[in-house]
Every structure is written in C-alpha cells, then in structure tokens.
C-alpha cells in the first residue's frame, strides 16, 4: 500500500545538499544549480519569498504603533535579542527569540540568529570589504592560530566573481590593506566626513584613511541587475525589512530566485539538520538526518556532496552532533579541535564629537551606509602593545535641534520650527580578536532543544589584547578627532558581552595540517572530503573585515572545486 507521505529514497537523493539558505548557503545553492546539479537546500526556518513576505516594508513610521519600540514584556522575556540594534518593531519577525531557541552561556555571549530563508542576509548591515595578504598572513607573522592555507591570490578572482553578481558600491581607493574590487559608483560622503578624510590623510602622511564604505547596494549598471529582478537602491535605509527594490543583496532577492530559475533547486523549509550521515565503509558522508521543525518527524536525504552553511556556530553544532564509530567526537574531529578557536569582533568602543564648521551646509536623506576607517595598526610590522588592530565606522551628519522646554503653543511652535545644531560625528570600533583554545563552543551535556538536539554551549570571553586595543582605539581616534577640530569628544566602552558584532567565527578552521585544523584550502573537511564548510565556521582568524563577502567567495570557490573534483 503506497504511503504518499514518505518519498522514496530516490526522491530523497540529490546531486548536492546545502545546509542553510543564508548568505553563504544561498551562494552554494546558486553555484551548484548553475552548474547543473540537482541541489537540495535545507532551511530550518520558514520561507520568506522576496517582496511577498516582507510584511513591514511599505509601512510608514506612524504605522508602527510603538514607533518602532519593542514592548517591555518581549524585552524582558528575550534579553539577548533585545540587545540587538536591529531588533525593532519593523524587523523583529526576522530575528530568533531567546525563548524559542535557548542556548547555554557558560560565559555571557549574545548569540544573534535569523532562522528563515535568507537567514541573516535579510537583516545584515551590507558592509563588505576584501581581505588582503596583510590579513591572511596575520596568524603566521604574529604567532597565533595556524597559518591560513590560502592567500589573497587564491580568492581574488572569486571576490571579483561575487562582487559583480551581488552588486558592490565602492570607491577605487588604491589601498594595499583594503583591496579595491568590482565596484558600482560609491555612495556620497558628507562634507564633514570629507573634511575628516582630508585631515587624516594629511596628518598621518597617507598612512591612515577615511573612505566611503564598500557596501552591497546597487548604485549603477541597472540592466545587469534587472536580470535578477533587482533595481537600484533608493536610499530608504529600511533594509532590515527586506527591500521591495532588491536594492541590497540578500539570498531572498538574488541567489535563491536565481537558483530556482535553473529548475535544479529544491528548497525545503522547516528542515532542521540533526546530523550528517557518515558511511564507514564508503568512508564518506552520504547524507543528512533532518527533523521536521513542525511535525518533529525524522527523515533522511542523500547526496554525494554536502555543503554545511548553517551559520558559524550552527555549523559547529551540526558537525559536533554528527557522531559515528569513526568520528565519536563529531564529523571530521580527529584532532579534538572542532568547536575550538572560535573568535569574534569586539564592538565595545565608541567615540563621539561635534564640529562647528560647514555651518551653511547640512546633510539630508537616509544613506544606507557610512564612512569607514580601514585598519592602520600593525599593518606591516608589530608596533603596539597588542596584536593586530581594528577597523572603524565613521559618520558625520548635521544635527537638528528643537527647544522642548516649554508647554502649549510655545512648545508646539518650537517643535515645528527646529534649528540646525552643530555637526555630530561618531565612530565605532571593530576589533580583531585572537582565536584561542579556551574560547570554544560545545554540545551541552544536559540540555536539549525542542527537537532533541543538544543545545549549544558557548564559552567566549574578552582577553587582555582586546582591552589594550580598545584603549588604543580611544586614544588614536581622539587624536584624529582633535586634529580635525572636533570638540566635545567623548569615548565610550559599553562593556557589552561578546556577540552583538554578529561576526562570530571559527571552530572548523582552515589549515594546511589535519593535526591542527579541520578543513583544507578548499574548505573540505580534512577527514571527510565530500563535506565543505564555507560559512563563518571555517575562519582561521577574524581580521577586521565584515566577513560576509569572504564567506560568499569561499562558497563559490568551493563549489567550483567540488564540481571539478567530482568530474576528475
């Protein structure tokens, strides 16, 4: 008697499986489908179709009844996600609630997640920078982690490839520490940002730079992006809602629809990957065990190639949970390092100031990016009392002030007739952290989630290097601010827990030696070479760059390798 609920093994066998439909998973899917492989993408959350499933994207500000504030009972029940800058009334439906997906904080760590088609590519800040050899050489030169098995030359063509399709706006700045790319026209810097840039270039003899940020927004070449069904960025700065124009890059607007068009993509939602199946005789992975998020039923899917793109820590979790006789400590984990040497970007330090110049000028509009200060510390040699360094965002806008002192007609008049104040300037620090064995993620021994999968235990802390770097950031930016004539300079250290950078990485690090790393130069698990890891989990060091661009490049490059390798 046929059971129509259970597909045959044949129906559940594909040419490739991709775990996760986010930033890097979407790219793996697109590349695999473009190359003709029948690809199954397993997404643990619900579907979010471009445009159709952006419920708030057309709302005016007053249509949010709390004017974008999150109600107190939600904040109280979900303190972790409530600390995320983008968790507001207009985008909260794309973020994971603490109550829905608990995890174990051995030390305080704010783990920010998005479980739906597109993952965090829906809500990301769209900042993109290339790595250079000054970054790849970091661990080897400075004696931490392990040597990257690749250099810039290996990934440069893939940066080209990704940037073209994604649509990256930026200026050709000619900096060795931040390679130029395939750029659409840059966004505009404000007068005071330009002023700051000039002062900094002059004072530091062109050794430090303030540039317009490179960002994943379409600012030109309209006809090319129209083929993806995407249009030019309209400067709404409401990206976290999902963009009806497809003006910024997300899986939802770009790679997933493209993959669907090939006819080779099967996207399954509510599909939580429990573990990867390892066949001891074939000595390779053969598929995945999936738990239906809604029915809790277990089902298996099979493929000769598996891409794990579940997001850095979720990828660690899946591999740790993929136990077999061959791999009792998790898939590929012969050396016991799986889950270890995780790291992040420290985001505690800020600085603000004012400027009494350009008083006849003002800035207006909602630019969806900012200016950017590439790392300038320890670039060519070790120079400070801390290793590595920090990049920083920078922005300057004309303040508007209103006198709110009075009541009645006077107050009303003042509110409707504000005046221009000074220019306000601000910067926040994005610091490289050193991966170490004592920072790790692991399966919790006791707690399981709703689907019987062990909860992730996170044990990550700041170290002395971070503290020294934060001190240096405050000192250096103060000096730079003073040189530019900024006043009322204030420095801040939020002392927040790690995690709100949303750049957690590592645990399945790349390396040349299987004794000290988990994946090879092609992102394959050393010990199970038909499994590829191309999301944040593969990162050997963090450098200072916003990492998504690099994850996408790894994914495309690894798919290319996987497909060529299988034909060999």
């Amino acid at each position, binding site marked *: 008697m046929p059971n129509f609920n259970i597909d045959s093994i044949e129906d559940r066998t594909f040419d490739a499986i991709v775990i996760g439909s986010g930033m890097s998973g979407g790219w793996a899917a697109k590349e695999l489908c473009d190359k003709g492989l029948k690809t199954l993408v397993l997404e643990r959350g619900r579907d979010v179709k471009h445009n159709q499933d952006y419920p708030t994207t057309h709302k*005016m500000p007053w249509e949010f009844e709390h004017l974008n*504030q999150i109600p107190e009972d939600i904040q109280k029940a979900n303190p972790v996600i409530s600390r995320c800058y983008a968790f*507001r009334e207009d985008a909260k439906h794309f973020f994971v609630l603490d109550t829905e997906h608990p995890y174990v904080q051995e030390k305080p760590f704010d783990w920010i997640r998005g479980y739906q088609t597109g993952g965090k590519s829906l809500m990301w800040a769209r900042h993109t920078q290339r790595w250079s050899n000054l970054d790849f050489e970091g661990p080897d030169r400075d004696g931490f982690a392990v040597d990257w098995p690749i250099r810039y030359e290996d990934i440069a063509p893939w940066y080209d490839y990704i940037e073209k399709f994604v649509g990256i706006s930026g200026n050709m700045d000619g900096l060795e520490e931040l390679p130029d790319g395939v750029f659409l026209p840059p966004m505009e810097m404000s007068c005071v940002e330009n002023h700051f840039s000039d002062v900094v270039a002059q004072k530091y003899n062109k050794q430090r730079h303030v540039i317009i940020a490179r960002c994943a927004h379409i600012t030109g070449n309209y006809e090319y992006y129209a083929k993806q069904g995407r249009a030019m960025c309209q*400067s709404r700065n409401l990206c976290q809602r999902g963009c009806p124009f497809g003006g910024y890059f997300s899986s939802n607007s770009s790679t997933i629809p493209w993959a669907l068009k090939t006819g080779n993509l099967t996207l399954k939602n509510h599909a939580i990957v429990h573990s990867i199946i390892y066949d001891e005789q074939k000595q390779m992975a053969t598929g995945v065990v999936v738990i239906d998020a809604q029915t809790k039923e277990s089902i298996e899917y099979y493929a000769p190639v598996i891409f794990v793109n579940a997001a850095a820590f979720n990828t660690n979790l899946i591999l740790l949970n993929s136990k077999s006789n061959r791999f009792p400590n998790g898939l590929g984990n012969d050396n016991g390092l799986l889950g270890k040497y995780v790291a992040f970007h420290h985001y505690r330090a800020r600085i603000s100031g004012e400027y009494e110049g350009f008083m006849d000028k003002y800035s*207006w509009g909602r630019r969806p990016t900012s200016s950017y200060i590439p790392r300038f510390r320890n670039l060519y040699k070790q120079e400070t009392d801390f290793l590595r360094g920090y990049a920083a965002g920078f922005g300057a806008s004309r303040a508007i002030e209103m006198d709110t002192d009075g009541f009645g007609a006077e107050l*009303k008049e003042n509110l*409707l007739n504000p*005046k221009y104040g000074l220019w306000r300037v601000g910067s926040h620090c994005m610091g490289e952290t050193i991966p170490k064995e004592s920072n790790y993620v692991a399966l919790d021994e006791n707690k399981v989630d709703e689907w019987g999968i062990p909860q992730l235990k996170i044990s990550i802390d700041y170290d002395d290097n971070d503290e020294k770097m934060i001190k240096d950031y405050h000192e250096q930016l103060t000096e730079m601010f003073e040189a530019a004539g900024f006043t009322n300079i204030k420095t801040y250290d939020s002392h927040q827990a790690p995690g709100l950078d949303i750049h957690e990485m590592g645990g399945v690090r790349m390396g040349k030696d299987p004794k000290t790393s988990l994946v090879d130069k092609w992102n394959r698990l050393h010990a199970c070479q038909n499994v590829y890891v191309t999301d944040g989990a593969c990162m050997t060091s963090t450098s200072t760059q916003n990492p998504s661009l690099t994850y996408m490049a790894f994914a495309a490059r690894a798919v290319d390798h996987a497909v060529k390798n299988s034909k060999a």
Partner: protein
Amino acid sequence: MHRRALLKNIGIVSAGILFFPGCDAPPEEQKKMVAKIQDKLQVKEEEQALVKSLVSTLIPNGEIPGAAELDVDRYVWLMVDDCLPKDTQKRYMNGLENFGAYIEEKHLAPFYDLGPAQQLSCLSDTMNQEEPASVVIIPSSLANTRGPVNRPFWEPEPLAPGNYLGEMKFFLNMTKNFTTRGFLYSEYVMTKLMPYQLVPGKYNGCDTIDPSKKINIHA
C-alpha cells in the same frame, strides 16, 4: 487616606474636602480605549480624561491640529501600557494620581475641567517647584540610535521614598516626552508639515542651507 498624606508632604495646606465631580458617560471611543488599556493597566475614566487634557495642554489645537486632535493620548497610553517597565509604570501612575489630586485640591476642580490658561499655569507651577528632581532625559534627537542596548530612551534615577512631587514631575515629563514624539511622528505631521518620503531616491551629504525654508526633521 493616602492622598491627604501626600498633599501634606507637598506642603499644601489642605483647605477642604476633596471634590470629585460627577462622572459623565464617556463617549464611545473613550470607552473602547479604556477597554483596550484595561487589558493590562487599569485606567480609570478620569485618569484617561486627565491625560487627554494634559496632552492637549502640552500641544494645543490651533490652525495646525494639536496633539489631542491627532489622538496622541492614545499613543501615550500605549507606550505606558506596553513599553514601561513595571516600576516605571507604577511611578507614572502614582505621579498621575498625585498630580490629579494636587490640582483638584488647589483649584477645587479636576485638571481637565480647568480653562486652558489655568491648565498651562498648573504645569509650569508644578514643574518649577523645588525638589530633588527625577531625571527624565528628553532626547535632543528623537531618532533611534544604533547601540548595543535596546533600552527605552529614559533611565529614571531613583526617587527618595515619599517624593510625591518628584513622581508628579516624572509623570508630567514622561507624558510630555511621549506627547512630543507622538506628535512629531503622527501621520498628519509626517505628511502635511514635515513630509516623510518612504522612497527618497537619494541622499545628499553636503547641501547648502536655504534659511528661508523650514527644516524638515523627517527628510
């Protein structure tokens, strides 16, 4: 009774009986609003009337509609109900009660029955009284700022116990805070006076100020 004690503390000579006006039947909309808020916060009709008239006093009607005409009191109650932590909510409601009682005591009529000029002077009188003031930060920029902590935009400092004047000022300042925000972000202001463009199309980083033009905070 609690109210008599607190009035003594403010230093008002208690002149007579507290006078409660008869409750008129509220209009249908008010009934509905009270019903909604009574999901969590128990709001009496005269408390609702007080806040509505306070909101109207703060930003009165004129050629341009005032805050009450734009239903900003609804936003005030929604924020008090949904977004204030319990302790802050308690302080707000205490302050509301204290203020209501204080005005009734002083003027022998509830706040919402006084004339506009008198209502205004009630506000400034209360706000100008000396005491260790509670701190309510009225943000100079009403824009949401990116930051690691998604706190509400105030952090009241602790009040000494029995500081009823402090609670009243807190209530007045908080209401003013929400009223100004609700007014500036109302549909009327954001379409007719300071238009907000959902699709601006561009950003300008260095435009020359035209002094003859009004500033649009939503541009």
